[in-house]
C-alpha cells in the first residue's frame, strides 16, 4: 500500500479494500478496523478523512488480517457506496463472466 505521504489527496469519498490473507477473498474496511465481505458494509471516509482510513487499512495489513489494501473512490447511490472506476465495480461484483464450470451436462 502506498504510504500516506505519497498518496494523492482524496477528492472523492473513499472506501478501502484488500484481500483477506487466509483465502484471498475481497474484503472491505468496515467500522473500527473490521473487514467485511460486502462493500455495503464498508465505512465511507470523506475526502478529508481518507488518510485516517488509509492508516486503518495499513493496520489491517500489519495485523496480518489482509493483504494488498488500497483506497477506492466511490459515489454514494441511495446512501450506498459505488466505486467510480469500472475495475473496482468488477471487484465488487466478481467476474462479469460465468465463474462456475461451463454449463453442460455429461450424457448419461
Amino acid at each position: 500500500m502506498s504510504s500516506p505521504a505519497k498518496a494523492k489527496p482524496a477528492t472523492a469519498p473513499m472506501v478501502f479494500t484488500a484481500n483477506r490473507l487466509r483465502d484471498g477473498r475481497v474484503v472491505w474496511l468496515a467500522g473500527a478496523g473490521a473487514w467485511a465481505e460486502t462493500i455495503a458494509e464498508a465505512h465511507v471516509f470523506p475526502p478529508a478523512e481518507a488518510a485516517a482510513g488509509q492508516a486503518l487499512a495499513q493496520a489491517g495489513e500489519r495485523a496480518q488480517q489482509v493483504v494488498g489494501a488500497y483506497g477506492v473512490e466511490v459515489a454514494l447511490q441511495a446512501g450506498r457506496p459505488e466505486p467510480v472506476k469500472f475495475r473496482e465495480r468488477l471487484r465488487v461484483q466478481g467476474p462479469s463472466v460465468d465463474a462456475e464450470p461451463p454449463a453442460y451436462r455429461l450424457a448419461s
Partner: protein
Amino acid sequence: MNAYVDVTALPAPAYPPHARTYRYDEVDREFLQERIAEFSGQVERRLAGALTEDEFKPLRLMNGLYLQLHAYMYRIAIPYGILNATQLRQLAMIARRWDRGFGHFTTRQNIQFNWTRLEDVPDIMRALADVDMHAIQTSGNCIRNTTTDEYAGASPDEVADPRVYAEIIRQWSTLHPEFTWLPRKFKIAITGAPHDRVALQAHDVGVVVRKNAAGETGFEVWAGGGLGRTPVLARKIRDWVGEDEFLAYLEAVLRVYNALGNRDNIYKARIKILVRDLGDEFAERVEAEFARLPKRKYRLDPEIVDQIASHFAPPPFAALPDNPQAYAQALDGNAEFAAWAKQSVRAHKAPGYASVTISLKPIGGIPGDASAEQMEAVATLAERHSFGEIRVTHVQNLVLPHVRQEDLLAVWDGLRAAGLATPNIGLISDIIACPGMDYCALATARSIPVAQMISERFASLDRQLDIGECFINISGCINACGHHHVGHIGILGVDKRGAESYQITLGGSATNDAAIGELVGPGFAYDAVTDAVETILRTYVAHRAAGERFVDTYRRIGLAPFKEALYAVA
C-alpha cells in the same frame, strides 16, 4: 495442513502404461518434497504473522501463487504442455476439491486455478507431487515453462522430437542457481518441425531442432523475441549448434542477458530490448561467452540424451492402414462428424493414426476453460484411444496425439458428450484470450467477454468456414498475455478515461511468416468491438482473391481499405 511427507513412503505415480511424459527420479521427488515442506512452513509463518507480505511475496511467486483481482491464483506448470491421463485426472480433482470445479489452460501450456485459498496451497502441492507435478518457476524472473509443438512425436513433418530437448531444458533450468533472479522472466520455445507451431519468434529464445546431411542433431537458435508493450520478433543468432554443445550455448545466451540486461527499468528488462539495442553485437557477445565456457562441464552427453529420449519413444503403434473403411463410412454418413473431423483431425506420422485437437472454445464459452468433468472425460478418452497422452496447446486447446483413425468416431462421440466437440479449430471462433480484467489484477480491460461476443456473432459454422483461417488474439492489457500483436486480428483492451477501449491491429502472425500486427486506428468501445471485427471481415471477403486467407489479403491490399471501412464518415 498435513505434516511433512516422507518421500520414501510414497508410492510411485501410476502412469498409464504407454504415456510418454517426463520421468521423475528419486532426486526429483525428494527435491519436490523438500520444497513442499519449505513452502508449507512459509505459508504457516505467513498465516501466523511471522512473515510480512513483502517478505512472503517473492516466496509465493516462485511457487506459482499470485494475488489477483478477486483471489489468489495458482499457476501450475505443465512441462512443455504434456500430460498423462493420471495427471489430468489429478488436475480435475484439484479443481473440484480446492477450486470452483474448473481450470484455465494458458498460452504457456500451463493451467491456472482462479480461486485458490492460501491455506490450501500446501495440500494442493502435495496432490500435484503425487503425480510428479508442481508450480515452481511459473512466476518470477526465472526460466519459465518451455513451449513445444503440441504434435511432437506425432506430426509427419517432424525432423526430431522436441520433447527430448525440452526435457533437457527443464532439467537444466529448474533451480539453475545463476538464472533464478534474471533481469526479467525468460521464455524458451523449441520446435522439431519446419512448420512453426510454437510462436518461435515471440519468445526470448527460440530453438529449431535440425538434422544435418550426416544425420547429426543440431540446433538453430533465435533470440530477442517478445511481445508486451514493446513487441519485437526474435532474430537468428546461430545457424547450428551441435547437440553436445546445446546447453553450453544456452548457458552463454543466458549469461550475456543476465550480465547486460537492464535491471533498473522493468519495461526495458526483457532480453528483446538488449538484443534490439546491441544488434549484431549480441550474438558476438554470446559467441565470446560460449568460447570461454569450459565445454567439458557443459557437454551434453549422448548417453543422457539417449536415456531421456527413451522416455519419449514412440508408443506401440499397431500396423494399420490409412483411411480405414470404418472411418470413411463414418465421414460419408455423418455430416456433423465430418465437419468436426475436417477441423480437428490432423495427419499422423504412423499410418492409420491421427492427432485430434480438442477445442476449448465452445461458442460463447471462455477460451481455455475446462471443467473437472471435462478434464476427466478427456483423460478417459486419452486412456482408451491415445496411449494415455494429452497435450496442451499454446492456443489454449487440448490434443489427443495418437488416435487410431478407426476410433475417431468414438472419440468424437465422447467429446460431444462432454461438450468438447466444437468444430472450430483454426477458425474465427478459435480465439486466444487472456483472463483480462475479469480476473487479472494488472488488466486494464476485459478480454473474455469480448471473445464471447465475437464467438457468438460468428457462431454459424458455414460463415466461419467461408471466412477460413483467421486467428483473433485478445489481451486485456499491454502485457500482451493474449499475444494480440501476433494475431491476424489483434485486440488490445486499454483504459481510456475510465472506460474500456479496444485497439485493433491487423496482419500479425505467430508462425513461420511471423509479423507484428499494424494498428488500424483509434480504439473502439466495448460494445463496438464486435461490429468492428465484422467490418474487418466483410472488407476481407469483399477484397479477397481466390484461395486467399485473411492474412494473405491483408498483406496484398494493406491497411487502407480496412481503415476506410472502419472509420469512414457516413
